[in-house]
């Protein structure tokens, strides 16, 4: 059986979630591995949420916000970007490949781009194989 990864995606309500909805209304098919959590702004994505997702068995975490300059809350996406760079260093220390976490900008009109991103990220994670972190956590606790 081929490996079907589970990917948790955090999408901001105003741009990315609406972009993902647009992929739906435009009926653009993409791989079913993404499971979305809606937040109001990418600035709300706490490092804890990402770590929790990995800990609970996510093979990849995708975060999407509005394009720079287009954030509904002015600059939440920049806050997210700053945390992302730090978090990337952190997950590597934890033994998680940095490619398992991605931050991308998707606007409300980019349904097509969202679908392409979902497919491309799923492929990346498929190549990396299952995340080992959940097993590690189970042995530790």
């Amino acid at each position, binding site marked *: 059986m081929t490996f079907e990864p589970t990917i948790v995606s955090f999408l901001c309500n105003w741009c990315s979630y609406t972009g993902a909805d647009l992929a739906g209304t435009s009926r653009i098919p993409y791989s079913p591995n993404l499971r979305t959590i809606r937040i*109001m702004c990418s*600035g709300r994505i*706490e490092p804890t*949420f990402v770590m*929790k997702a990995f800990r609970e068995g996510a093979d990849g975490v995708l975060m999407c916000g509005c394009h720079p300059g287009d954030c509904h809350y002015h600059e939440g996406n920049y806050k997210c970007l700053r945390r992302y760079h730090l978090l990337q260093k952190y997950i590597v220390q934890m033994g998680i490949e940095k490619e398992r976490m991605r931050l991308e900008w998707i*606007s*409300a009109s*980019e349904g097509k781009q969202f*679908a392409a991103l979902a497919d491309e990220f799923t492929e990346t994670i498929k190549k990396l194989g299952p995340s080992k972190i959940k097993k590690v956590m189970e042995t530790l606790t």
Partner: protein
Amino acid sequence: MEEIRIGVYICWCGSNIAQLIDVKFIAGEIKKLENVIISRDYKYMCSDPGQETLIADIKQNKLNRIVVAACSPRIHEPTFRKALEKAGLNPYMFQMANIREQDSWVHIDKEYATLKAVALVKAAVSRVKHHEPLNKKSVEVNSATMVIGGGITGLTSALEIAQAGKQVYLIEKSDSLGGITAKIDLTYPDLKSAGQMIRPKISQVQNHNLIEVFLNTILEDISGYVGNFSTKVRRNGTSEEITFGNIIVATGLKPFSPVTIPEYKYKVLPDVITSIELEKMLQDGTVKTSDGSKPDNIAIIHCVGSRNEQYHPYCSRTCCSTALKYANQLRSLLPDAHLFDIYADMRAYGKGCEEFYTNTSNKNIMFLMYDQKNGLPEIRKANSSDNAGMIITFSEKLSGENIEVPVDLVILMTAVEAHEDAKEVARLTGISLCGNDFYIEKHPKLDPVATTTDGVYIAGTCQGPKGIDESIVQAKAAAAKVLSMIAMGSIEIEVAVSHVNEEVCCGCQTCIMVCPYKAISFDEEKNVSVVNEALCKGCGTCGSTCPTGAIKSLHFTDIQILSQIEGLLKTESETI
């Protein structure tokens, strides 16, 4: 603590969800979960009987949490929240799982789509357990309105509102009112004077004691929220502040410049002109070539910059009927001239326009078709022996022949496009842009003049190319929306804001630094941060920055999101 009793409803959405996702299987799986008292599937949850079932279940089974798995929460979350209220439950004790836009409409494999839906519903169930009742807040609506844009749309909206006795601030960046309508001669398909329509509107607006017109004015910044906005406007070097409750954005669009299309040699050959340049000639009553002579041969070329991936992919909607209008006007002005209408597709849509096309085609006008896929018609300067100023060469689609048309004047039916400052206005007002920089409405059919920002409406061509008639429909619709809000007097606003737990706050003030709305201040006496709920918009950035976890983003709390993640991932080992 009160026992958690959850009702879960899986919507079929007719066949939209049910044809790919096994709704009965999901309902069965969810029924097994702790605290789930009821788990049903139903054909249309948003319908009246669907909502009545939900309300009856809440009452009969003392449900205190509801999950609906259906379309996007961006569509029906408000519908179901209202149903909860009707049943006496706090509307925030509700969570939606999006199994249509983000599942059944985008996946092909039934099994995977169903498993994904199970995960999404489990996540919602897990989250809703941690929901807390929130009380809506009522704020008064300022009865003044700001209308941005002084074209036919903005003028119409402003008049509608002022005539109902309410104050309007009309903001226009140029030095005159009237917009593009003031620049055109006749309207289609009735061939009536645009000037006779727009001029009285302008003077009514200028003379209305409830409309304050700001010319040569730019917006510096907009703050506040529905019912209570304020802005700084700058004109003649001075800045002033105005306050209002609603905003109508009617910023229009502008003609595309065909200089970038090499085939048409616009600005190279002096007798290649654009539609708006012809309008000027028609307003003046004479159509001449650049050397002042009467043109014997005139061509009108359609789709200049429209429906072409290289320029604009969309149809500009009004150019075909406008071209027919020109054919009529030119025929009257120059009864002996040869008129050529070179079109890609004749899209004379709308009431009376197909008839207008039929009538025009009986006026001795040569209609020729080209196909953009086979290249654009090419205009070149004629030789002295050609008996015309220019030659247009193209492959005529219906005859299949390459033909040459001698012409003295060419009219390019240019596309229309968004203004360069459309992005800036969108940023200031919180509107989203589509890929072509036109504004996106809240819902194309159910809420076509509202936007995702409450209290901000769009009307006219800033939303997309359209004719004067359609722009006026939107102008009046937006005015009606604003007037109904003013009539209500007060409005309930989102209460999902941030809250500081003073016991846990260490007074580091990091939240104050990251807040984009200056909504957090510092209480020196207590040494804690304080959120001003009226200014907070609930983005949650402070919550994710707070080092001690003192800030709670209501309705998006840590525990709610962490439980949602847990619910989302717990399913894997159990179902696959």
